[in-house]
């Protein structure tokens, strides 16, 4: 690994100050499961790593029916995976974290890190966006809350400045009769990067799909809402023909590339298959 210096700030302001030095030569070290790999593969060459794990106030994980889910930037994907509240209320998110890497990885990898790394195939992003998540960003100018859906600008890129840190993720409480699902497509059952990821969150009102959000991962430079697919189903009774139309719309909205993990054509096809399956499963969960 390339040589670098290492800091352990005790406060957010100290961290932000360190990150601001030398314009981008410092990187955040939280779980380390992305940044250390990138350094070892010579994709990233920071001069400094700033370990934020000693900063207090970012390891909480709370749910209540009024404010929903709030968890700090240092909460690991494993903690989310085993949280009863998340399993019950945000099944898509729970499923997504359980399929990231291995347990060893998940004991270190944070959800906030998954967000900041902004890989087009990141698993937590589609279900978080489908559930309407937002993030709290802390920087030298202060704090701001931004809808998660709006922070991604390209593959591996977000609106975050080099000296800004996500401190918290918030997800609104699900309405009654909401089902939330994430399906990850890969060549094997674990240790995979998604070739396609589909998250569906829908709320039923009797047989009618009152609200639906479909988010696609790994088929565009960022995770994307399949708006047209949603429009097909929103406020309509959920039935087979419409679901197939929505799946086809999702296919048309996806813009995957071909790479060693799969061709664009195959990924488009899988968007269709998985959207159908995800909608069906979400509807079941919503009963």
């Amino acid at each position, binding site marked *: 690994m390339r040589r670098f210096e*290492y800091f352990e700030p005790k406060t957010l302001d100290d961290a932000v100050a360190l990150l601001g030095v030398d314009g981008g030569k410092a990187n955040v070290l939280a779980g380390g499961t992305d940044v250390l790999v990138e350094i070892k593969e010579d994709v990233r060459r920071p001069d400094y790593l700033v370990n934020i794990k000693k900063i207090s106030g970012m390891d909480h994980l709370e749910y209540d029916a009024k404010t929903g889910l709030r968890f700090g930037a240092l909460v690991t994907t494993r903690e989310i995976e085993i949280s009863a509240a998340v399993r019950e209320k945000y099944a898509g998110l729970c499923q997504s974290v359980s399929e990231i890497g291995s347990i060893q990885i998940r004991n*270190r990898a944070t959800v906030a890190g998954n967000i900041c790394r902004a890989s087009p195939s990141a698993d937590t992003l589609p279900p978080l966006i489908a559930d309407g998540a937002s993030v709290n960003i802390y920087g030298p100018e202060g704090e701001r809350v931004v809808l998660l859906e709006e922070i991604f600008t390209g593959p591996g890129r977000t609106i975050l400045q080099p000296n800004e840190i996500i401190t918290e993720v918030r997800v609104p409480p699900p309405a009654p009769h909401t089902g939330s699902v994430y399906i990850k497509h890969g060549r094997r059952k674990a240790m995979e990067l998604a070739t396609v990821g589909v998250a569906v969150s829908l709320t039923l009102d009797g047989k009618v799909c009152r609200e639906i959000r479909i988010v696609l991962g790994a088929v565009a430079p960022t995770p994307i809402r399949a708006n047209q697919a949603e429009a097909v189903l929103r406020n309509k009774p959920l039935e087979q023909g419409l679901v197939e139309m929505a799946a086809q719309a999702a296919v048309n909205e996806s813009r995957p590339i071909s790479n060693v993990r799969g061709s664009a054509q195959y990924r488009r096809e899988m968007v269709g298959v998985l959207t159908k399956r995800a909608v069906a499963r979400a509807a079941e969960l919503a009963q």
Partner: protein
Amino acid sequence: MKHLIPLMLNGEARELAVEPYRSLLDTLRNEAGLSGTKKGCDVGDCGACTVILDGKPVNSCLVLAAEVRNCEIVTIEGLQPAPDRLHPLQENFMKYGGAQCGFCTPGVIMMAKALLDENPNPTEDEIRFAIAGNICRCTGYSKIIDAIRATASDLADRAEETAR
């Protein structure tokens, strides 16, 4: 510039002087005299470097030594309860053929230990899920699972014995 890191390593208080960019894995193997933990890929893809850090199994290749100040680490060398007594996992990996070339073995055993600590009676599916991040190229996993299942059973018997 080296950082001085105090920690508990296999039940022993140690202090290691480490470069900031050195992984916990390299530090264990090169500074701490514990070469039992292996480097299979160095990027978290294979699990051969699994150790237990503050009670949780992690890939030590993706932890900086500098990060583990005052932490508790258990490696394969720290698993057996006494110099002349093995942990049941170790006995059963030998007995059931869970180890062939042995390179993945320390990592698999530590992951299995973490699993059994949390879930003393796992199903086969739960075992396969737990070791999904440990690559073995020799056994096809069947005998690894046999060894872990047998250990769960042995530990349950022991617990019953003690309870009586």
